């Protein structure tokens, strides 16, 4: 299969993730966009198209028509500017489209920004807005929340495979351990297994420490044709594979909720495109919106056998020194989860490792990394494989 021109990432930049009362959606997006452009030593005028990943800007901030609102603030008036919405996989989806724009030969250089401003709303309202990524006709109307959908996945996974509360807690403990070393993380706090197991319940069997955070933040990358990459960066990163797939929005439409078929499809295609298998991947950033999601993802990606994710996690296999380091950044759990920024944020974390710029979190093996971005309870999934030039 012909995947078009080879594409490289020549610039990456993100804001810290956290609660920033003095920053609005646009100022966050602009800050990340400028960082990525500076990292690529590129002027705004060199960018030919702008791709924005954002889940619910209009609901959180009442501003719509976000893409040109931001691109013009970055000094890019005139170029096509479009927002992509795919729940928590919004910026993964934007990145996937941006990749195609360059691979097809239509554009030589494009900018992708992911952003979300969430902390301007109270928690109950945030829960309501996030529930909008579920099926309003079936699950949301009865009182399902996002934690409750993943709680039901966890319950069934525990029933079918013997996954335990301790397994779930081990994911949170490991991600907090990594996040504590990340200067850009929202919650830089080490937690114990006991704390993670005994926190207050959110949706049983998930408790506070199984859930990712409510965050503000933005992340950006500059893509260009690989043959021009060295003009812009001494450390360009190759996009080896990227694939997006979809599934039912409602959890109850799925035959087996302990696996994400869209993730499996996207992974298979991304591996094929990159010419690699799961065994070749050296480290990964997985979408741990809830601890159970990291466990299911590592199984669907083929890092471990089905049903073994929790066991592998408790044994330490996913720690920085483990056989398959997962979320060395701290993950959504500790780093923060500004939903529209998460997909591109994960890419920035992979790029940092590939470029050997991850400081205390730098992994020993860092030449081929994978990012997995999930929307809703699995209705959208984007898998991206990045490698060193």
């Amino acid at each position, binding site marked *: 299969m012909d995947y078009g021109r080879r594409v490289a990432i020549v610039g990456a930049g993100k804001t810290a993730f956290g609660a920033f009362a003095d920053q609005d959606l646009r100022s966050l997006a602009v800050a990340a966009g400028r960082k990525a452009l500076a990292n690529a030593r590129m002027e705004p005028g060199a960018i030919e198209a702008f791709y924005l990943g954002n889940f619910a800007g209009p609901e959180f901030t009442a501003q719509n028509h976000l893409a040109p609102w931001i691109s013009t603030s970055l000094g890019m008036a005139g170029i096509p500017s479009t927002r992509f919405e795919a729940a928590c996989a919004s910026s993964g989806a934007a990145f996937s489209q941006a990749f195609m724009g360059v691979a097809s030969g239509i554009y030589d250089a494009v900018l992708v920004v992911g952003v979300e401003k969430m902390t301007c709303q109270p*928690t*109950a*309202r945030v*829960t*309501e807005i996030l*529930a909008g990524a579920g099926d309003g006709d*079936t*699950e949301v*109307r*009865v*009182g*399902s*929340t996002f*934690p*409750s959908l993943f*709680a*039901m*996945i966890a*319950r*069934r996974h525990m*029933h079918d495979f013997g996954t335990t509360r301790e397994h779930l807690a081990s994911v949170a403990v490991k991600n907090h351990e990594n996040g504590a070393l990340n200067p850009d993380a929202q919650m830089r706090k080490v937690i114990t297994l006991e704390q993670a197991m005994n926190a*207050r*319940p*959110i*949706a*049983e*069997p*998930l408790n506070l420490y199984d859930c990712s955070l409510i965050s503000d933040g933005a992340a950006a990358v500059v893509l260009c044709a690989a043959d021009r990459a060295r003009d812009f960066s001494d450390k360009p990163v190759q996009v080896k594979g990227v694939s997006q797939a979809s599934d039912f929005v*409602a*959890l*109850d*439409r799925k035959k087996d*909720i302990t696996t994400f078929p869209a993730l499996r499809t996207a992974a298979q295609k991304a591996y094929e495109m990159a010419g690699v298998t799961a065994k070749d991947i050296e480290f990964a950033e997985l979408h741990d919106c809830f601890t159970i999601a990291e466990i299911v993802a590592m199984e669907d990606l083929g890092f471990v056998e089905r049903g073994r994710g929790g066991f592998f996690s408790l044994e330490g296999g996913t720690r920085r020194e483990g056989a398959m380091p997962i979320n060395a950044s701290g993950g959504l759990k500790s780093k923060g989860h500004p939903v529209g920024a998460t997909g591109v944020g994960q890419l920035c974390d992979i790029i940092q490792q590939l470029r050997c710029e991850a400081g205390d979190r730098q992994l020993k093996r860092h030449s081929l990394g994978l990012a997995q971005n999930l929307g809703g309870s699995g209705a959208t999934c984007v898998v991206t494989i990045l490698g060193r030039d």
Partner: protein
Amino acid sequence: MRTGAVYTETVVHLAPTKFAADVPYQVAIVDLDDGERLTARIAGERVAIGDPVIETESHEAIPFFQKS
């Protein structure tokens, strides 16, 4: 009344504004005897995976089931 068995369930402790007064409440995905699958609220006693359930009255078009 429809009948079925619990495929999975959860007890919700943090709810959107609309349901905040109901917490904690149980939500389940029910495998109906006719082969369909449905997300519903559980009334009364808590249920676990595999428990047989029967539909009770609906409130505001929300299907409610209870242990049978």
